[in-house]
């Protein structure tokens, strides 16, 4: 199916390396975000903005995971992305409802 001449495999190796570099950066950022998140709570910053910032950090981390670690940014991932976002939509409204229109 795929042509596998030596040169293309050489090319792929390079590409993989490139990608690996990106992923290392991603990882470092994720660690940094986690550190920020934990320290904000440990040093008891004001609740009013800690919570939104925490949530934003979490969302960004998850985007990193999905797009870099799980390759959703790559092509060939249209269907996965579509269905995953479908799930995410349902997930979001589920969480919203359960935290907004139940008692207490």
């Amino acid at each position, binding site marked *: 199916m795929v042509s596998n001449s030596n040169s293309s495999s050489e090319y792929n190796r390079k590409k993989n390396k490139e990608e690996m570099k990106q992923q290392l950066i991603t990882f470092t950022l994720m660690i940094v975000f986690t550190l920020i998140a934990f320290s904000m709570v440990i040093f008891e910053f004001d609740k009013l903005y800690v919570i939104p910032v925490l949530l934003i950090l979490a969302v960004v981390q998850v985007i990193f995971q999905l797009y870099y670690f799980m390759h959703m940014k790559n092509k060939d991932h249209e269907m996965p992305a579509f269905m995953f976002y479908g799930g995410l939509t*349902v997930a979001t409204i589920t969480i919203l*409802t359960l935290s907004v229109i139940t008692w207490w």
Partner: protein
Amino acid sequence: MSTAIAQKQGFGAILWDYLTTVDHKKIAHLYLFGGGFFFIIGGLEAMIIRIQLIKPANDFVSAGFYNELLTMHGTTMIFFAAMPFIFALMNAVVPLQIGARDVAFPFLNALGFWLFLAGGLILNASWLLGGAPDAGWTAYAPLSTTSPGHGVDFYVLGLQISGAGTLIGGINFLVTIVNMRAPGMTYMRMPLFTWTIFVTSALILFAFPALTVGLFLMMFDRLFGSAFFNPDMGGNTIIWEHLFWIFGHPEVYILILPAFGVFSEVIPTFSKKRLFGYTAMVFATVLIGFLGFMVWAHHMFTVGLGPAANAIFAVATMAIAVPTGVKIFNWLFTMWGGSIRVTTAMLWALGFIPTFTLGGMTGVMLASAVADYQYQDSYFVVAHFHYVIVGGVIFGIFASLHYWWPKMFGKMLNEKLGKLTFWTFFIGFHLTFFIQHFLGLMGMPRRTWTYLPGQGLDNGNLISTIGAFLMAFGVIVFFYNVVYTAIKGEKVSNDPWDGRTLEWTIASPPPHYNFKQIPLVRGLDALWVEKMEGNKNLMPSEPLDDIHMPNSSILPFVMSLGLFIASFGFIYQVDDLRWLIVLIGGMLITFGAMFVRSVKDDHGHHIHKEDLEKGDGL
């Protein structure tokens, strides 16, 4: 061909064949018979309900038993009759319609069926083991969590296990439709039935997990003393209602969309016209699926969520009428200018249009939140959902069975008997349920074991019961028809209806590899396109070659059997810890089978080119 061989086999061999099959066509048969079996059970329960309500203050059955009956009727019909019928159709038709040799995961396909069957048997075992669940098919907590005995435990485990099977099936068909279409079959050339199955499968994928979680929480509450739905410990029963309906509303579209798909095949075929507004139909299907997730709280208008929530969900619910209306009008205009042949299948479609329209319109009436304060939990709702479920889903299943029976079994159902079934069922249906709208408005709540005389409800209930008997008669005629056809029916050709889609290009019933050569699709209604160009059949897209086929396996059956056994251990270990042995034993069987499956490579086998050349067909 495969049945020809099967007929020469003994009973044991046939049984083994079905226990181990991974062939989607045989799995379709299994789903069909499983669904039919549970449909009879659910129908008998309905008949007892109707007999109990034939006159006021009746005591044909006791109050507690009545609650078990109505719970089991609803649960059985939705999960173990309507759902398997739909899976039967998916299996029988989708791979053929997209020009595939099988589904993406034949093994999982079989597993899905056996899980469904295990779930259904667990649920119904409750009848024999001290009482069925009695909290309604919606199982609202805390009635369900405090219901004595083990009835509700059977409900929880039965649905959990069959739900896993359904989820597997859903994913399987999503992947099948995305990856296994024949060359040339773009998304916009897919037959509409396949489209509806695609959307339905997506709904299954996103809706069932909510039920799974709900059932887990309920199980924890009942068996392990957690406090999710226990108000005394800070629990919150509304969570169950939300989780159930987040699943429950999409579920009703899971049921109806395939029926829409069926009518979108039947109506064009018997009008000799292509589907009017195909693109709009596809779009409407997707939109209904999408909106289906935004409206569940319309089942909870009276729960007390507040006016803002009620208003939002009321308007969102009404919006679904628009894409559904698009469908109704497109069907009407498909017939417009056509050449309508009134076969039995078409008759069901013709009966469906007014019936479902009525049911849909009462749906919109229910969606008007303040009006729903009166309808909610009254017989008006019962009337609404039987109009859409029976008038939509069951009519659709009858239509599809008459339409695809020749493809599935190679024999034509008797048309005369079919028409008799239709008329008795159709008239009986309207007699039963039309009057219930008024009963509801006259103050009859649903789920009532009996009603007192002198409330003006007597005549309506009597008429309703008479109608139910007429329906039962129709169903019995249908079963007679099935038996009659099996014995006396005549064999049919590839294409008995002058069909338009790929399934009619191959033998009836199809050989087990379906297509000797995968066809090349050149347009919507691929077979019709070729017919119009004077070709007898589709062009192959590949040279004749060895065909790769999956191997049969008993493992799916064993896995489900293990879970079946384990459930009983699970339910009864609260009474006596020795039941843990049963639980562990069952799980060991399941895990053992899973282990064998993952360690043993199964690459399938090949049917050789030479053998294919010898065989006839295509």
